[in-house]
């Protein structure tokens, strides 16, 4: 009985990490496209980012993924945060759901950013995490003065969920 429970825990945590990673990276892809930010580097770095975020969610200490948009003027806006929360194994339904239609409506309302705007990705943590290739210590831009809109839950999986918060000028 114990071995069965252990197997299920491993199964769902791995699948939760895969699912939430795809959900977050897919949403970032769509967001960059809506904002009019060139996504070629994001596409090239996909495997590296996917492996890192997947590993950190599986470890259970990834707090959030953050997308910062750096305008040519030096202003950093918008900033999109993707908080990840973890649920106790067995406490949630064994379902994988996403709010894709609601997300599409939300993104369709976003204003484009000026040409030449670039992006940076950050991850924040609540505990120890393994080093991942291509990722290192960095400092986030201040979000002071930005207004925020909470999208709510992007998607759910048996062992966790991901949300989205949009900070703008």
């Amino acid at each position: 009985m114990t071995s069965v429970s252990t197997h299920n825990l491993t199964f769902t945590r791995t699948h939760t990490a895969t699912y939430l990673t795809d959900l977050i990276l897919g949403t970032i892809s769509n967001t960059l496209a809506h904002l009019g930010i060139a996504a070629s580097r994001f596409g090239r770095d996909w495997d590296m980012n996917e492996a890192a975020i997947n590993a950190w969610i599986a470890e259970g200490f990834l707090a959030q993924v953050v997308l910062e948009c750096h305008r040519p003027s030096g202003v950093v806006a918008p900033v999109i945060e993707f908080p990840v929360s973890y649920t106790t194994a067995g406490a949630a339904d064994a379902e994988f759901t996403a709010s894709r239609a609601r997300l599409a409506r939300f993104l369709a309302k976003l204003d484009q950013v000026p040409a030449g705007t670039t992006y940076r990705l950050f991850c924040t943590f609540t505990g120890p995490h393994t080093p991942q290739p291509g990722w290192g210590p960095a400092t986030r831009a201040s979000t002071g003065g930005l207004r925020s809109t909470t999208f709510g839950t992007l998607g759910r999986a048996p062992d966790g969920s991901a949300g989205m918060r949009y900070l703008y000028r």
Partner: protein
Amino acid sequence: MLRYRTIAAAPVRSASATWQVITGLVTDTIATAAALSRSEAEQAMSVAAPAGRMLVAGGHLDRHPLTLIAGQVHCEITTTSGTAALTAEENLNPVPGVASAETFTIYLPSPDPLGAVVSAAVAGHARLSGATPPAEPQATASSAPLIDLAALRKEVTGR
């Protein structure tokens, strides 16, 4: 011949792993055609990968198929994500009917908002297209009899 394939994406596979499976399906299929090159298909799918992974992760391929057209075969490849992916039945065998094909094109869908991303990707290889796939040539493919009745009659009756 219109064919369909459905590939299990997240949570069964990551977007990159899902794209690898789709690439394998396309290249294995092209490799069955004597006149076509597997490596050319691999190159095309590699060029398309940055856009392809975004199409997978964004859930776009769940609704908008990638279409492989090789000779008379039109194969629509979609993904399934979420809970349904856990029980999806896959057929990863090469798509039949391509053996005599002399050319092929991989049509990527261009759903909003990834149109520019797809356009940039398809510009990188001649075998890729972001256009709407041409309609399946049903008339020639389905109206021709599968059995040559005259030849069969002659074989059986000697007349």
